[in-house]
């Protein structure tokens, strides 16, 4: 399996999962939230979380932020993004996921310490963000070293060819 294929197989399903749940949460935010498939009493209470004051940030629904975020993450996990040689894409992918993990910290803190309820659907998005972050970091760590190191190893073969 090529490195690109492995990266796509590991990240794209997670990104699509996050996007799917984000679409669902955004839809529920703009509808009545009454159809959220989740208990609405006790510690597991999606509606309490999605209708709390923490469901919006500076007037923008967090569900909408999640949707926009995951559209970007899916784009960064597409085969074409993994194939690109530009280090910018790789850095952007890691930076976006690190920012996502930071936001997950904030949302989990709000759920546990301010709202006193856990939203199962939100947790799916949180888990996919954290797992994606871990997978992308490991893929970046295991990738071949930067292009600058390559010629030393490959140069002798190239130089030796004419003499053979």
């Amino acid at each position: 399996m090529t490195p690109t294929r492995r990266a796509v197989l590991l990240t794209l399903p997670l990104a699509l999962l996050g996007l799917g749940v984000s679409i669902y949460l955004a839809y529920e935010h703009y509808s009545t939230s009454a159809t959220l498939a989740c208990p609405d009493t006790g510690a597991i209470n999606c509606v309490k979380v999605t209708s709390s004051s923490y469901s919006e940030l500076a007037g923008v629904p967090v569900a909408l932020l999640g949707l926009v975020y995951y559209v970007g993450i899916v784009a960064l996990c597409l085969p074409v993004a993994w194939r690109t040689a530009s280090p910018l894409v790789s850095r952007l992918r890691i930076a976006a996921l690190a920012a996502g993990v930071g936001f997950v910290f904030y949302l989990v803190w709000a759920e546990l310490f301010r709202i006193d309820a856990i939203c199962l659907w939100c947790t799916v998005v949180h888990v996919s963000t954290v797992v994606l972050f871990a997978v992308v970091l490991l893929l970046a760590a295991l990738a071949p070293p930067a292009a600058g190191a390559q010629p030393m190893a490959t140069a002798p073969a190239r130089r030796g060819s004419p003499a053979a």
Partner: protein
Amino acid sequence: MSSRTPTSNSRKAADRQRRAGELAAERAHAERRRRLRIAVASIAAVALVLTGLVVASVAGFGDGADDPAAASTSSADAAVKAATSVPPSALDAVGAGTSETPPTRVPDARAITQDGKPQVLYVGAEYCPFCAAQRWPVVVALSRFGTWKGLGGSESASDDVYPRTRTLTFHGASYTSDYLSFTGVETSTNQKVNGAYEKLDELKGEDARTFVTYARPPFISGPAGSIPFLSLGGEFVLGGSQYVPDVLVGKSRTDIASALDDPQSDTAQAVNGSANVLTAALCELTDGQPHNVCMSTGVMTAAKKLDAGS
């Protein structure tokens, strides 16, 4: 001295190339190990933070457990939990319910804010049965805009009308919200000392001025200084309770709080209905935020009651 043969030279060159290749491979390996260490450390840090948050939550950090005011309210925990998490479906199904007296709009209102947010001011006393009734919808309504801490249990006086009406108390409670601020003043306890109810919180400063200005006709229907008194950002005021407390008499706090989940119950009709009317008024102060609260069926329905009463 040119004894070196081409074969010897090419062997040396091949050795150099091999060593260079080995060195490059070693460097690449070391670089990969370094990056792997950083990645694993980052992942471990993320896992550690998330585990820390969960452990701290389970251990009760941040829930006011070390706060004496919160500790004294532990017996009311179940009621507080239920009253602060009434399902939106139960509120939507009730609409205005049996709520009778809506807050009235203040003509030429002067916005009253605290920390840059519209201030909800409650003035009452623990002995007062109408205050006991009114606290329930205040707690339910404000829970939709923010979070309560340190709410405790209380009851009205046993020698007054609607004796021992079970309720929550704002004494020692705090409220945080992105949209509103809250000040709750319980001026007296429900215990008499030398024939008078013991003093509790002091009404002072701007809050006292708001009370003196608006807790009188024509802003409220009762006599001047009536409690409970509510000012919603200085734009709406309410004197007395929104419903008659008889629906609560003889019920425990837990009974009252758990009945809020059942839209058919008398308690939910009165408390949730009043909470929806209050929420409709509060939504005017927050410019309709949060959207899903202010646009909910129950609040939209209750808003008609608000307009009918202004």
